[in-house]
Structure formats: C-alpha cells, structure tokens
C-alpha cells in the first residue's frame, strides 16, 4: 500500500492505495467518479479521458502514483453551482450523444481544448478529439457541439 494525495474536482483527498492501481481505478472505485468510463484499457479509445493539471490524459494509462499531487477534473466536476458546463449544454443542444458511452471522454477532451482554443476551425476541433473513438455519431454532431460551446463561451 502507498499513500497519495489527489485534488479531484476541487476537493482534496488523501488515499491509501495499492501500488498497481491505475488512475481510472482510483477515480472509479475509491472515489466513485463513475462518469470516467473504461473502454479499451490501452489508450486507444479515450473513453477514460480526464483533465490532469490542465492536460487531457487517458486515465487508464496513468498509474495512480504518477498522479500523486496533481489536480484532476472528471465530467462530474464540470457542473458549477448546478449549471452545466457550456460543453455539456452544447452536446445536449446539438444531439452530439447517441449511446453515450464515449460522451464523458469527448466532453473532457473538448473542455481541455476549449480552455486554450482561439477561433477554432472545424479541422482543429477534429484534431483535438481525434484521440477519442465514437462508433455511433460519425463525429459531425460532436464537432457541431464544440463549435457551439465556443460560441456560448464567447457570447457570440
């Protein structure tokens, strides 16, 4: 067992965990942030994407000990004072979700991208979410939603 400290969705946690746990295991099993989805378990599908110290990571490829001392945001951390994040709102508005399994990962990838984006083109949006796989939507409505979320945030 080993002790780690994590800040998840704005709250500090001190945890005693087994050394071989991945970040996704700690988030889902120890802290019950089950919005983090496990897809392929090998960094191909992006369903487990979370934001770690401002960067998008596959939480299945990060060992929990590697995340020690870091700040993590999962999809549960996006709602502020009961208000959906603009990305979440746009996904609903544009119908960017079908079966929904990949959705939390896409929303986190979009959030991390929009935190830095300036007047993003559709091609740049496509590149930003290219680490996330979706079998249902064909991506077009997801790209629509991310464009829309940018407009919400800029008030345009």
């Amino acid at each position, binding site marked *: 067992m080993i002790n780690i400290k994590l800040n998840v969705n704005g709250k500090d946690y001190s945890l005693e965990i087994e050394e071989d746990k991945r970040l996704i295991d700690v988030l889902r099993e120890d802290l019950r942030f089950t919005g983090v989805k496990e897809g392929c378990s090998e960094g191909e599908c992006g369903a487990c994407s979370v934001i770690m110290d401002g960067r998008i990571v596959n939480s299945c490829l990060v060992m929990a000990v590697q995340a020690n001392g870091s700040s993590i945001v999962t999809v549960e951390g996006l709602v502020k004072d009961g208000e959906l994040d603009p990305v979440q709102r746009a996904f609903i508005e544009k*119908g960017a979700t*079908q079966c929904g399994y990949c959705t939390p990962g896409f929303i986190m990838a979009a959030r991390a991208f929009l935190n830095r984006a300036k007047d993003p083109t559709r091609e740049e949006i496509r590149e930003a979410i290219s680490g996330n796989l979706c079998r249902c939507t*064909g991506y077009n409505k997801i790209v629509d939603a991310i464009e829309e979320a940018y407009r919400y945030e800029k008030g345009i």
Partner: protein
Amino acid sequence: MKKRGRGIGLSFYGTGYGNGFPDVSNAWVRLLKDGKIGVYVGGAEVGQGAMTAFVQIAAEALGVPHDRVLLEIEDTLTTPDSGTAAATRQTYNTGNAIKIACENFKEKLKEVAKDILNLNSTAALEVKDGEVYLEIFPQKRVSLEKIADFLGGNILEAEGSFTAQTTKLDPETGQGAPYWPYTFSACGVELEVDTITGQVDILKAVLVQDVGRAVNPHLVEGQMDGGYAMALGYALFEDLNLKRGVMGNRKFSKYLIPTSMDVTELTKIIVEDPESTAPYGAKGIGEPVMIPVTPAILNAIYDATGVRITELPITPEKLAKAFSDFEKEG
C-alpha cells in the same frame, strides 16, 4: 500519382424481421394520478433515439405537450413485449403500437368524460391539450386531472398491438412480399486516390435518405452521420483478420475504426414521402443509412483508377497492389 474520382451508390432496404416472421410490437397507455399519461413499451433505447421518437408519437396521438407523457421502456416487469431494437423496426412497429394504444386510450377517456359531463354519447367528444371536450358545445369540458380524480384508485388503461405485414417467400419460386415497408437511400462521394501509397481521401460526400416522415430530423441526421462513418470504416479500414476462426485484430490499434480526422463533412438530405401504414408516415432508417456508402466509395475508386475492387476493406496496401497489378496487365 493522385487520381480523383466520383461514385454513387443506391439502395433499397426492407425493414422489419421479414419473410413471414411474426413482427409484433405492443404498447400500454395509462392515465396517471396527476393527469399525466404513462406510456409503456418494451422497445430498447440504444442511442438511436427511440425514447424521443416514442414520446413524440404519443404526444402527437394524445394531443398533449411532450412533458405530459411519461415513458417507461425496457423493464420486462412493467412493460409489454415490443420486440427487438433491431431490423430498423422500432419507430415503425412500436410507433404504430403506441399510436393504436393512444387512440384506444382516447376512446376510454371519452367514455369516462361522457359520465362526468352527463352526456348521452361519446360522439363529437375531442381529446386535446389535456382535456376532453364536446366539439359542438365546448363549454362541456373536463381535464385529465379531473378524470384521474374522478376515477380514484381505478386504473384507466388501453393496449395497442401492431403486427407488420410480411409473407414468407415460396421456397419453390422465391416469390412473395417478404418485407414492408421499404426505404430508399443514395450516396455520392468524390475522393482522391494516391496510387503509390493506396491512400484514399474522401473529399466530398452526400447522403440522401428516404424516411417517410422525419419524427425528429435532428435524430435522423445523427443516424445518417453514424451510418456514413460506419460504412466508411467498413470500406476502408475495418478488418477482423479472421484466421481459422480466431480474430487477429482484437484491439482498436489493429481493428481500425474511423476517427474524427477520417470522417469528412457530410451533406445530409432527408427525403419525406409519408408511408401509409406507418405512424404519421415515419419509416425506420437505422440500418439503411449505411448501405449505399460503401458502393459509392468503390465506384469512385473505379472512376479514379479503373480498378474494380471486390474485397473489403480496401486498405492502402491492397489498393496500391491492385493498382500496380492493373497497370502491369494494362
């Protein structure tokens, strides 16, 4: 060398189980205590938007806003059998069952309203906007809340059942009408082939889908985008690599599905030609949206290179080899 080509694919698709198989959907509709209406069907939501379509069809049939319809699906304890979410059949079959159940439910509402309003007949009674009223004397009206109050603990409920028309093909002659209804689609693509590397880039794509009537155009578009992307993967990338019954490509790093970078913008055209046997004319489109895309891609590759591809997926390696063989043979 880069070569450009254009291709189209056309398809027609028979929806439902077909070939004489019993293709049945059932629905229940119930008046709830607060005057809202419960709709119960066994049709599964798998992301295609069945729940939205069911609520829309029920709200339309009952003449109430969507938020007065409470849908319960999938739970075998509380819902009747509505068949599988397969064969492009839920909107058509279960939609029909819901519409029939709602119509039966309205007749039952009118019976109760007749008693409450001291009328001698249900003729000319109309159910709309959460009220039952007499069309020829609209002062005579009662809300669904009042009807629920009046009934107390008694349950007002109606059933609807729909069986699709399908006949078994004659095994001797192959004659019959195995499916109804049919739906039609078309796809056109313009692409560029790199004849050295075998890389295919789709430059433009248009998908046209006959839907009878779009219950929810947004959802229809979502299905079209998804079907297009899936067919793109089927044509160009996706290979199980089966060897002696064992899947060789069991990972997303080997079994490649399209990413957001592979899928280009898609022009979507919805064709509405209402189907007379369908709920408000709406036919299913879940599977058909995929069908014409791969032929369109293969026809465009032929147009660009003169090479006829007969094996999928047409990976860069295979296409580069097919083109060099074609050149050698002249």
